[in-house]
């Protein structure tokens, strides 16, 4: 690799090389943020349910993951 | 014990005989659609015949799985049976009954489809029909065995037959490959013994593994 121009265009195969790198990057980063988001939403869910049932009357029977409820992504 | 279980399965199926015949209708009808869709000319049909007959047999096996497992599970009699007999035995009885009532009839009607798809066209005396029947005879038990595992796994999940198809179809690919290539090799006058041997080997592997896995899965589904 000699020049910046060559890095971008890669002979005539720039589109192929860059699109595969870009796709890989998008997929992996997407997974990363998705998992992070899942963890955070679970955390806030546990927290809010703790607050709501603070006066230890009845423990909630079962909690289910409801991601679509709290869409407030930062 | 095994004989009693098998007898019970066959008795249940006799009461629901139309459920046994429908996969056969399906098998014949699907295959007879292709001349309309592709071309009625003999050379073309002959070329695609092995693949189409095999895919149709595969789908017919898959569709017929439901009735051998679902009703049993829903009315609770499966749970009862599993209390008195080992899960592997129960699974084997179901698999054998399924094959006797769907796999074997498919093998028997396949010559008719061979005629429809013109596999003997242009040959004076040929044994392609026999090869087709033999490949199905070795292949359909494997289809039933693998299908039983998928069906037993999907039993407890309240989904329709699509889930079973998704689970099982990738596992059917090797059988499809060797089944069709047996018939194709015969049509092209090549030796087909190797493919038949591999089909038999696949059957052996499935015969060892599947009843155990399916029994295990049945046990999980009623637990």
């Amino acid at each position: 690799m000699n020049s910046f121009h060559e890095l971008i265009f890669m002979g005539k195969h720039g589109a192929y090389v860059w699109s595969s790198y870009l796709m890989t990057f998008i997929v992996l980063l997407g997974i990363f943020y998705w998992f992070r988001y899942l963890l955070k939403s679970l955390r806030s869910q546990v927290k809010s349910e703790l607050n709501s049932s603070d006066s230890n009357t009845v423990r909630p029977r079962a909690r289910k993951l409801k991601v679509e409820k709290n869409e407030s992504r930062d | 014990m095994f004989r009693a279980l098998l007898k019970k399965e066959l008795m249940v199926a006799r009461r629901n005989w139309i459920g046994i015949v429908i996969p056969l209708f399906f098998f014949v009808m699907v295959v007879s659609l292709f001349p309309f869709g592709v071309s009625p000319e003999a050379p073309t049909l002959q070329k695609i015949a092995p693949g189409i007959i095999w895919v149709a047999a595969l789908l017919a096996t898959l569709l017929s799985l439901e009735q051998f497992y679902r009703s049993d599970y829903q009315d609770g009699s499966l749970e009862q049976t599993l209390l008195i007999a080992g899960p592997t035995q129960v699974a084997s009885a179901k698999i054998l009954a399924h094959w006797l009532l769907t796999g074997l009839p498919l093998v028997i009607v396949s010559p008719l489809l061979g005629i429809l798809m013109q596999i003997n066209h242009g040959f004076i005396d040929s044994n392609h029909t026999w090869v087709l029947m033999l490949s199905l005879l070795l292949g359909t038990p494997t289809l039933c065995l693998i299908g039983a595992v998928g069906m037993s796994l999907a039993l407890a999940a309240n989904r329709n037959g699509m889930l079973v198809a998704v689970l099982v179809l990738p596992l059917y690919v090797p059988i499809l490959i060797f089944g069709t290539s047996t018939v194709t090799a015969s049509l092209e006058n090549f030796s087909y013994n190797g493919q038949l041997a591999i089909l038999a080997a696949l059957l052996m592997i499935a015969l060892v593994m599947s009843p155990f896995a399916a029994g295990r899965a049945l046990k999980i589904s009623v637990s």
Partner: protein
Amino acid sequence: MASRWRWFHQLGSPKWFFEKSAKWLPWIWAGTLILLAVGLYYSLWASPIEARQGQGHTVRIMYIHVPAAALSMIGYVAMAIASTIGLVWKMKMAFAASRAIAPIGAAMTFIALFTGAVWGKPTWGTWWEWDARLTSELLLLFLYLGFIALHSSFAERAKADKAAAVLAIVGVINVPIIYFSVKWWNTLHQGYSVTQKGALAPEFQVPLFTMIGAFYLLFIGLVIMRLRVEILMREQKSRWVADWATEQKAQKRGV
């Protein structure tokens, strides 16, 4: 004897894993970033083009295609091993791990397929070739999707775990059978394989092995992240989760 197996019992404890893995993750991500930086430098800039087969710059796709393909298969095997451990020793963490691996393995399979197709266009002149490896990779993706579909179809988690575990084991027995039959079928129809394996020249080895290392670490890191989510979903009712959620410090290392 007892102390030799302690790590195994500790791994089986969700709480222990959840707390420890929060400390491991930063190191894993740091290692991943370093390896990725070096690997990308070599694979995109400091490595020569392929001249012998006239692939030119497209050889650079190999540096992500091969690691993704390798991990897609290793991921399935790991999933099956975790499933076996879960079924044999009734270890819940092993089931959680197999569920955690599935989506990441599927993503790796998808990446391998996508980059394979993009690589195929300039080299073979077509996006898709029914080549033995690409076809097996496609079937592997179907197996992963089947596992996820089955696991998500149950109302009870215990049943879902066991059923999906049986499927993973049946699948892993079938993977070599599928691979060899597809390979046989491919030679029958084309008489050659488009992805022929040759000895790799040393100048391609440095970026390739660095990238494989980076992908391994990335895979492990993502699996741990998913496993933490899985643990939380399973242990929502336990005391330590409530403690963790209300703990202020945890906000900082939230990942």
